[in-house]
């Protein structure tokens, strides 16, 4: 089933939490809503589920407007951040709940329910845990029970609210891979809320980055990463440096150093964003990049992290891969040249639209 959100707005009292949201998740796709806390992503998910109601706009399941339907009638599988398992019921009863509360004429017979529960527990690899209670399970296991319970009602869409937020790092990684496999297998349209960019980029077919109640960019993970639409996206995805630059007569300057030419002609100050691993650190080589001084070196596993003070006064974080030094050993205090391999320039005036992407 396809999920579409059109012109959705929502305020809690005076505070607006969602502004004119438009989102399309095609049948069978996995969409991630990514953003910092308070960006409105959970509210959006809950509106899609029918747990909150929008002030304006539509939520379409295929072509049906479900805005008037309660959560009860939407047939969505919702996985809560803290699982929300019924703590006084066994795992099997938890999973069976959605089937048992159906009207009598729609309710499957007891043996059918039992079989279905067994299948689902098998699916989430908890076949032997049916008789236990939620508080006897680990976090990852509870998460899988919550998923089985949501799947029991044969939902038309699966909604996941920070499903791995409460798990420790290793379990999280395993669950991620497992969930993506399951979603592909079931072909179920899914929407995931997360504040973890790795999770979003790795899991989803499309990522919608949210901030202050707006979707600021919605694209494939690759596009989001390679061509962030705004400085905020750059910063949110992590590892980005910001340099002040200047555009003058179609030329781009950082400090006095000319970086390249730029289609945007207007004379204005601008911000340049560049990720630490998109910067190349070289022994000093006049005329080929930005000049600076090596301030600090820290060894961080695979990468060496360098901090460079540019002549313009900005400091720049640089990731130096172990193979790049070509036998050269870096010394703190030495003069260096940096070359920006891939960066984005954003005019500080005209909103958040990128003026240019430069890639090598």
């Amino acid at each position: 089933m396809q999920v579409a959100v059109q012109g959705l707005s929502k305020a809690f009292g005076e505070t607006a939490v969602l502004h004119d949201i438009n989102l399309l998740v095609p049948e069978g796709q996995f969409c991630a809503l990514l953003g910092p806390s308070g960006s409105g992503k959970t509210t959006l998910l809950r509106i899609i589920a029918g747990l909150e109601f929008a002030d304006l706009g539509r939520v379409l399941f295929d072509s049906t407007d479900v805005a008037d339907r309660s959560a009860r009638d939407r047939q969505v599988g919702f996985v809560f951040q803290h699982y929300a398992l019924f703590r006084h019921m066994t795992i099997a009863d938890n999973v069976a709940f959605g089937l048992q509360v159906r009207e009598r004429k729609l309710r499957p017979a007891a043996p059918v329910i039992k079989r279905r529960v067994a299948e689902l527990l098998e699916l989430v690899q908890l076949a032997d845990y049916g008789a236990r209670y939620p508080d006897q399970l680990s976090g990852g296991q509870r998460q899988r029970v919550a998923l089985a319970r949501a799947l029991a009602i044969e939902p038309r869409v699966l909604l996941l609210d920070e499903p791995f937020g409460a798990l420790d790092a290793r379990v999280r990684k395993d669950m991620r891979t497992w969930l993506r496999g399951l979603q592909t297998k079931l072909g179920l349209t899914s929407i995931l809320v997360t504040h973890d960019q790795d999770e979003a980029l790795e899991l989803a077919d499309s990522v919608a980055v949210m901030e202050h109640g707006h979707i600021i960019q919605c694209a494939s993970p690759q596009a989001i990463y390679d061509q962030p639409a705004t400085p905020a996206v750059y910063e949110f995805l992590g590892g980005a440096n910001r340099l002040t630059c200047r555009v003058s007569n179609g030329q781009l300057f950082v400090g006095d150093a000319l970086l390249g030419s730029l289609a945007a002609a207007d004379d204005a100050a601008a911000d340049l964003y560049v990720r630490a691993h998109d910067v190349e650190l070289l022994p000093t080589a006049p005329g080929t990049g930005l000049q600076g001084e090596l301030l600090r070196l820290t060894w961080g596993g695979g990468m060496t992290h360098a901090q460079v003070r540019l002549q313009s006064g900005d400091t720049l974080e640089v990731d130096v891969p172990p193979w790049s030094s070509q036998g050269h050993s870096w010394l703190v205090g030495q003069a260096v040249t940096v070359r920006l391999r891939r960066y984005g320039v954003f005019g500080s005036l005209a909103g958040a639209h990128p003026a240019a992407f430069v890639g090598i």
Partner: protein
Amino acid sequence: MASLAQQRRTLPGFGLGLGVTITYLSLIVLLPLATMLLRSLGNGPAFWWQAVSSARVLAALRLSFGASMAAAAVDVIFGLIIAWVLVRYRFIGRRWFDALIDLPFALPTAVAGITLSALYAGNGWLGQYLEPWGIKVAFTRVGVFVALVFVALPFIVRTVQPVLQDLDKECEEAAATLGASRWQTFRQVLWPSLAPALLTGFTMALARAVGEYGSVIFIAGNLPRVSEIAPLLITIKLEQYDYVGAAAIGSAMLLLSFVLLLVLNLLQRRMLRVQR
């Protein structure tokens, strides 16, 4: 904007629940209370003032509020000690003593009343030892105070106890490692968390003590203008079919309690704000 009832809710039952709650509350609590307030002014404000400002009523109100404050204050001190001992120390029978704290909640006030007067009467269990020293408890204001100390104790202990339980022991230990004396630790680490709870307990104890009737009337002796409490005066007026007079005292008590609770609440809010 959609009206309150039409507004969409995630869970069902809001309209029904709110309707039932407000209706019930209105019928059982609000309507009768409103009747009293209206009735108290039935013969005009001047009459109300006259009824309330008679020497006997004033004395009764003064006693009710004064003895309640004194009793609540004493309970703050001993309640804090008891809560501290119950939370921090382990000793034989602790659980029993802990359970016993609620006795004043559970024991009907009339039972408490006759028991206290049997204890403190001139020939009573304790009274016979106090009398020779010139300490008269039963049938005096002291008796009122003693009864209210009994009644109000659980309010203090039960509000302070959970706060003490939640206090992070590591904070105290940190203070100790930083060289604070025990008194400094108490004053600067514990007290800021305890004070608001004590004030809440004091407020609840006071509200309860001001209205207390059963446990007081047996021990007080009920001498007009000396040891007669305000609630008793209400029943006396009622027996004389002076409904307006009774309503006037009742409304005065409510008014005074309300002002007192308001002041204490504001004080507490300030306290919590200062902490932040």
